[in-house]
């Protein structure tokens, strides 16, 4: 839930929850490679963010693995996770930190603190990564090896997802209604384009084009799916969603030829044909979607009433249901390990 809702939803605000003691269950997992992490936001200010891990060999889901291994709760609103080398980087938004873990045993390697309201990480190289932020008006630069903040890139307002392309990092500048292009050699903004109100999620396809979802300012204008060429920052295609629709969580398969997003159910669109779908590919309750880069398996998180344990549904690439797992409170993003 965004902070925007804080005041008028004080009643809902009370839906915070917690588990005061780390989960007693010992995950007893040999390694956290070759599996899928499920990142759980938990409730805003509820302190019940958590991390689950699905072992793809055994199809066994282990919940609250971070707190089980490290004997501390993960934090408040875990937003996203990436892997860089043999480490996992979990962005914990409302705790203003990034928890760094060893993927071999999930033990804590360290914590990057002092961030304002971090959202997503974009890996530039082994020694450089960017982390976007809601409030600080900067994209922070950090060294994934030393965990030191090494610099900042000034932006105007909130920045959400970022993706690395051959011509630079493309960042969704939600607060400025612009999509930024960053030169990764000198970490400076070099271009931007207005694609509509509230660009927030983006992904790069097989052709190197970047697809962006806008939220339309939650009613200011229709939400859009926009394709830009990151080389010249030209807008190539724009699709408008119907009034009252607010899509999110755009992803691609490993080949990069198919786009997926959440808009009630799961929608998908072939990049080559660019036929905008009018019906859901998978009709299901969905909060976020993830596509396994290994085999195209579709992972869907369902947060239920957003105040109890949620579920993860798996589907084959053709949309056939596989299985369901009970996970933690507000499951959201997926992070696939090799």
């Amino acid at each position, binding site marked *: 839930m965004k902070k925007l809702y804080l005041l008028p939803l*004080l009643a809902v605000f*009370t839906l*915070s929850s917690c588990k005061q003691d780390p989960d007693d269950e010992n995950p007893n997992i040999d390694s956290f490679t070759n599996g899928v992490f499920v990142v759980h936001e938990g409730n805003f200010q509820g302190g019940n963010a958590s991390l689950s891990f699905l072992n793809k060999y055994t199809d066994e889901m282990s919940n609250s693995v971070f707190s089980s291994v490290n004997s501390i709760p993960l934090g408040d609103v875990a937003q996203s996770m990436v892997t860089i080398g043999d480490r996992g980087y979990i962005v914990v938004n*409302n705790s203003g930190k990034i928890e760094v873990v060893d993927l071999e045993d999930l033990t804590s390697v360290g914590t990057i603190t002092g961030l304002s*309201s971090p959202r997503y990480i974009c890996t530039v190289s082994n020694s450089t990564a960017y982390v976007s932020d809601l409030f600080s008006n900067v994209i922070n630069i950090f060294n994934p090896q030393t965990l030191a903040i090494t610099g900042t890139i000034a932006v105007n307002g909130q920045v959400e997802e970022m993706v690395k392309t051959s011509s630079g990092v493309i960042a969704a500048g939600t607060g400025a209604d612009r999509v930024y292009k960053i030169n990764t050699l000198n970490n400076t903004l070099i271009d931007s384009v207005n694609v509509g109100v509230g660009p927030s999620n983006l992904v790069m396809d097989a052709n190197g084009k970047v697809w962006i979802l806008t939220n339309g300012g939650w*009613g200011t204008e229709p939400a859009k799916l926009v394709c830009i060429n990151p080389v010249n920052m030209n807008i190539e295609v724009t699709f408008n969603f119907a009034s009252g629709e607010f899509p999110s969580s755009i992803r691609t398969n490993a080949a990069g030829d198919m786009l997926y997003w959440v808009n009630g159910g799961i929608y998908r669109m072939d990049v080559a044909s660019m036929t905008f779908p009018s019906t859901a590919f998978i009709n299901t309750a969905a909060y976020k979607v993830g596509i396994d880069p290994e085999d195209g398996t579709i992972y869907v998180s369902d947060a*239920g009433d*957003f105040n*109890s344990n949620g579920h993860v549904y798996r589907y084959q690439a053709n949309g056939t249901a596989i299985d369901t797992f009970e996970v933690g409170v507000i499951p959201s993003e997926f992070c696939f390990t090799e």
Partner: protein
Amino acid sequence: MAQVVDSVTYPVVTVASQRIAEAIGSSVTETDTLLYSMQRGRGLAQVLETESFISTRAYSPGGVANFSVRGTGSQHTQVVWEGIPINDPMLGQTDLSAISLGGIGQVRVLYGSAGMTNNSGGIGGTIELIPQEKRTTDGFDGKLNVYAGSFGTYGVSVQLRDSYKKVFGTTSVEYQTAKNDFTYRNLASIKKEDKKLEHAAIGRIGFTRTMGVRFNERNSIKASVYYAQVDREFAPTMLMASTNETLFDRDIWAALNWNRIGKRSKVSVTSSYIFGQQDFFDNNNYIFHHLYHANKNLLRYELRLKHDLHLELGGDVFNETARSDSAYRHQAHWRFWQAAFASLKYVPKKWVAAQVLIREDVIDGAFSPIQGLVGVEVKPLRWFYLKGNVARNFRAPTLNDLYWVPGGNADLKSETGFSGEAGLGFRSETERFKFNAEATYFRSTISNWVIWLPIGNVWTPQNKRAVGISGVEARLETTARLGKVLIRLNGAYTWVSSKIIEGATETDVSVGKQLIYVPQHQAKANVSVHLGKLYFIYVHQFTGLRFTTSDNKDQLPAYQVGQLSVGYAYAIGKHTIGLGFTLDNLFNTEYQTIAWRPMPGRSFLINLNYQFL
């Protein structure tokens, strides 16, 4: 206490009554004068936590405080001042910590639908803020209370009363500040090291003024003004990074009331203006403005039809307006609310009374579910009574429910509640010994329960759940006088099962589970010993475990806290000086009322008061 229990004489045709009449067969608790005077500096949440069946929870001491009455949420209880419902129409509830008690002389809680003789929407109950009593004789009196305590707590309050011939008035001023920078054990860290709470300061200013004129035996007019502003920092949880968030609340209530008392009838007309402002400053120093104001007019007419038959008619006309930059995108929204009710009370004998009430609200032209209440009280023995009622009540959607952008649902239905309660009590009183025990079983069902859930990716309120509630409230009050020693022992226990009985979806895992933050068990007791001018009071509270997720898989543990006070009052003629010392959280209990939000350990408060008559 209901009518038969206190006395069978009619509650009508009394000048002094500033209270709303509770329904027959219902339960009511009132604050104890001494305990209230001790707790009022800590705010309404603490007063209710100590002296009622209400469970409260606060984000920090003095922070935003929510509560539960009979297993319902804060939105299911109406808070009433001078007979006027003052819940925020945007949120549909009152933040207990935003209330200034400087001019409030007593707090009553009317449980279940007991407040339906005055207002709708109180499915859980009605909290009545009763202004300080006016002087009944000519003259001038006043009270001054100055206090200081742990964690940078300081406060001063003044209450004045004046009366001269036909004119009377009351005045109160309150100022309170607290840093709340206490040390707590950080349970979210590996070493569980001590940490000081940051950014939890509060500052409150309150002012009230009442002026009235008794034109003659029958007619009186009264004007009342209440002003309060509270500045609060939002403390981070144990798991959050530091925060700069602050909240500023301002409330202005003004009421003009005319009373006319006849031989067999009474007319009361009240016109009021209610103003509320909230400015929330986020970490980016962006300000969210919320503003509402309302004009609320109430007409009450009471008529004794026969010696044993009493009729009351009432009508309300409310105009509510709210504006918000973030919630409504700078738009204003209005609501026109009309209501009418008729109540018939029948008291054929001194030992039996019955009531039938019917009420209808019309909101923007749409008729609410018909509400009603049937209550009975019987007192077959001098020391024993039985009582009960059944009622149907409703709660209208809040303006946020209807107009929030995006997601507001203009088609949202009202929640409806069916409730019933049955109780019995024992009462005995001699010159040296007073005993009162009462137990009540209650049961209710609330359907069309409003829950915010996403449709697509947009959060929208929906009538998706139903909640079934049952419970028991029991209390004991005893007073014994042994020579010069006065001993009082009061105790209360409540058990509440408040469960979701219809899920929001077919796979809703919360069905059959207790509502979050509603403790099943709660108990409190206080014992006081008065030795002339010296008194000792011990207050003990137990709050059972509370679930924090709707599937009841996570919980906060039960806790117990104790409070010990000692005081001395010295009187010289019309002047009295008192000194009090209180130890809060005597056993230094580590506890939370909201997950990951620490509450203070042992602390003290010294207060000095002066009163002249």
